[in-house]
């Protein structure tokens, strides 16, 4: 057996069913072995599409995503996706070919120091020097990727190692003496946390992406205690977006209720999140009344990294919540809820209607038409925030977006990965005209595998989020953000790929467009030409605090002090 076959055997032993990738010279032995393997391969048109698809596959399914690429340029095209997966704690294994061992370090054709390049953007990486190490390395890589704080692991395999005769064993003993994630929370700290919550007058339960797998425990804990719940962008869906205890998303484009709740909270229970600056704003002014911050996270390095924590609980959010549930009591929060209710009803998410078609109403229309039952993916920009605001998801693993890295172009490949992982689900990619054009070649992948994905492009003819910042903070000097003069006809573009195209330009055609998208039997690219000058509000300016929240454009300004 050759190394390449041993690799695939090892992947099969990990239960891998699908691999995304793109072949090339230095990984050809693996692709040759793939020809006879039961592992399904999804051929993408660019490695970046592959790594994003594998990321979404992982996030939609809860399993480890796998992507393959050749050496040098192929492997380097994974860089953005690996960084994205690291930032959003996604379990991923990337397998790359490399030049033969004898050529490593000689600037050989298609050679790049991929383990060196990816060191800061992977949880761990390997350069396999001995063919007999392959099963151990694969076992370790999957274990590292999926346990503790999940993350991407890269395995770089020289071509001659792929071709070498394998004489080793698949019964492997991992060699990871330095890797022992703590999963069970410390009972004393859990006790302290419950105690603090019991004494709290204005407590808040704040949930991040690290609690997607703990949705059941979370719901039980919130319902038992009656705590108000807010979910970060990465936490959307971990708690049902239609639940009366839910206040929405906090942070830069969060709801008034969620941000005010944090601002006035005396005790914050933060679960599976890392206090990103888009959530906290200026850290020194974050949650100024919170005398107790309880932080539950599996990664000890996240605790105290940005925000001072009073009760640190290192552990798996699911196990910790399960323990907390044992001691949880209904809390007396009637007065607090009166305040929260007031903020929620006075400042719901809304938009000021214009004669033109608007992104928010498009998203809202899809939400109503689907009853919110869809897996939503997004690109990055205004449309992403509108989707987060106006398409509240009710189930975990149903809102797939690039949180930490803010990677434009993930929408379509994320939708591909999600559809491959959960083919029975309706998958909608809300995309921007800017974002979509970063990876649009993956339309070919949709066609090749007949993946029924609905791409909804909210075309405002601008890099809308940049334009919004220029509008508010750069004296409306719209430097290099105008796209409308050179955008393609998206419907025609889709048709060129053999994908059904839909175009909606007027408000009155909105419902017809939504129905056309949802009624189509296969993939669709629908372009909705939306109001160009729209802004995402509420907004807390970068580096600001909850008190600086603006809920409407300054021209129509209504500021909401916390």
């Amino acid at each position, binding site marked *: 057996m050759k190394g390449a076959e041993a690799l695939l055997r090892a992947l099969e032993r990990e239960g891998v069913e699908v691999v995304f990738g793109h072949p090339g010279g230095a990984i050809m032995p693996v692709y040759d072995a793939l020809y006879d393997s039961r592992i399904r391969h999804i051929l993408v048109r660019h490695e970046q599409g592959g790594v994003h698809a594998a990321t979404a596959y992982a996030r939609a399914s809860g399993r480890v995503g796998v992507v393959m690429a050749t050496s040098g340029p192929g492997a380097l095209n994974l860089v953005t996706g690996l960084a994205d997966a690291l930032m959003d704690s996604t379990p991923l294994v990337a397998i790359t070919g490399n030049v033969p061992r004898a050529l490593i370090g000689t600037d050989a054709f298609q050679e790049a120091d991929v*383990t*060196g390049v990816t*060191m*800061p953007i992977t*949880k*761990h990486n390997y*350069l396999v020097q001995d063919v007999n190490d392959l099963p151990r390395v694969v*076992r*370790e890589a999957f*274990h*590292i990727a999926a346990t503790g704080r999940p993350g991407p692991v890269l395995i770089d395999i020289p071509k001659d190692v792929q071709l070498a005769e394998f004489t080793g064993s698949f*019964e*492997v*003993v*991992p*060699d*990871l*003496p*330095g*890797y022992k994630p703590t999963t069970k929370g410390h009972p004393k700290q859990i006790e302290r946390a419950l105690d603090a919550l019991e004494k709290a007058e204005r407590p808040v339960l704040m949930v991040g992406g690290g609690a997607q797998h703990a949705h059941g425990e979370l719901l039980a804990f919130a319902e038992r205690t009656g705590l108000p719940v807010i979910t970060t962008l990465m936490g959307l869906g971990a708690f049902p977006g239609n639940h009366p205890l839910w206040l929405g998303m906090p942070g830069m484009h969060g709801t008034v209720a969620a941000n005010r709740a944090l601002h006035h909270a005396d005790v914050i229970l933060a679960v599976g999140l890392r206090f990103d600056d888009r959530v906290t704003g200026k850290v020194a002014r974050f949650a100024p009344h919170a005398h107790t911050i309880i932080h539950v996270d599996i*990664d*000890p*390095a996240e605790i*105290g*990294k940005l925000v001072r924590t009073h009760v640190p609980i290192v552990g798996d959010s699911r196990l910790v919540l399960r323990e907390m549930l044992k001691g949880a009591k209904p809390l007396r929060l009637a007065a607090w809820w009166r305040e929260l209710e007031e903020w929620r009803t006075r400042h719901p998410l809304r938009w000021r209607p214009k004669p033109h078609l608007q992104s928010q109403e498009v998203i809202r229309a899809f939400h109503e038409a689907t009853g919110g039952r869809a897996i939503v993916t997004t690109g990055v920009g205004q449309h992403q925030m509108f989707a987060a605001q106006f398409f509240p998801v009710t189930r975990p693993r149903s809102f797939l977006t690039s949180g930490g890295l803010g990677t434009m172009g993930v929408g379509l490949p994320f939708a591909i990965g999600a559809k491959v992982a959960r083919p029975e689900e309706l998958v909608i990619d809300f995309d921007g005209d800017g974002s979509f054009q970063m990876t649009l070649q993956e339309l070919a992948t949709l066609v090749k595998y007949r993946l029924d994905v609905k791409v909804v492009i909210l075309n405002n003819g601008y890099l809308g989020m940049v334009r919004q910042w220029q509008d508010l903070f750069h004296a409306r000097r719209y430097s290099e953000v105008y796209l409308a003069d050179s955008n393609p006809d998206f419907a025609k573009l889709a048709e060129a790929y053999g994908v059904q195209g839909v175009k909606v330009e007027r408000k009155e055609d909105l419902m017809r467009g939504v129905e056309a998208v949802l009624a189509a039997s296969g993939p669709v690219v629908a372009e909705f030409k939306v109001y160009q000058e729209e802004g995402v509000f509420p907004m807390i300016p970068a580096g600001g605090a909850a008190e600086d929240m603006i809920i409407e454009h300054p021209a129509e300004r209504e500021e909401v002090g916390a």
Partner: protein
Amino acid sequence: MRHIISVLVQDHPRVLNRITGLFARRGFNLESLAVGTTHVPGLSRISLVVSGDDRTLEQVEKQLNRLIEVLKVTDHAEPHVERELCLVKVHVAGVEERLAVKDIQEAFRARVVDVAQRSLILELTGDSGKIDSFLEALRPYGILEVMRTGAVAMSRGERTLKVREKREAV
């Protein structure tokens, strides 16, 4: 504040790269780094001299611990022995200087490890402060070359950085 940290690692290729890369990427201030093998095959020990406030140091330790190949991290706050090795090549013009340098050598209990017509190589071990003063004392004679290893440290008494080797099938 200055801290000396010992790190026990698996001596895989690039593990040093991971550690220095971590310091560079996160903006931690690394003053010196010394590495060597241990009595356990496959394990190396690294001594790092780092400066920063308590919060930074806490992050340094936690981020080091996140590295898969790092087994243990200790910030030597407790009583410990700290040593650095220094080789210094000093210019000696004539007999008078030679004698003066010899006085300094004796005062610091340094050793002469190479003698040439117009230069000497001296070897000194000690903590960083002692080496600093030694070099200061030699400076007037003309230092030609200095090589310092960076500090290494070990806790006093029973405390060790030992790990039990245990492998479990995963």
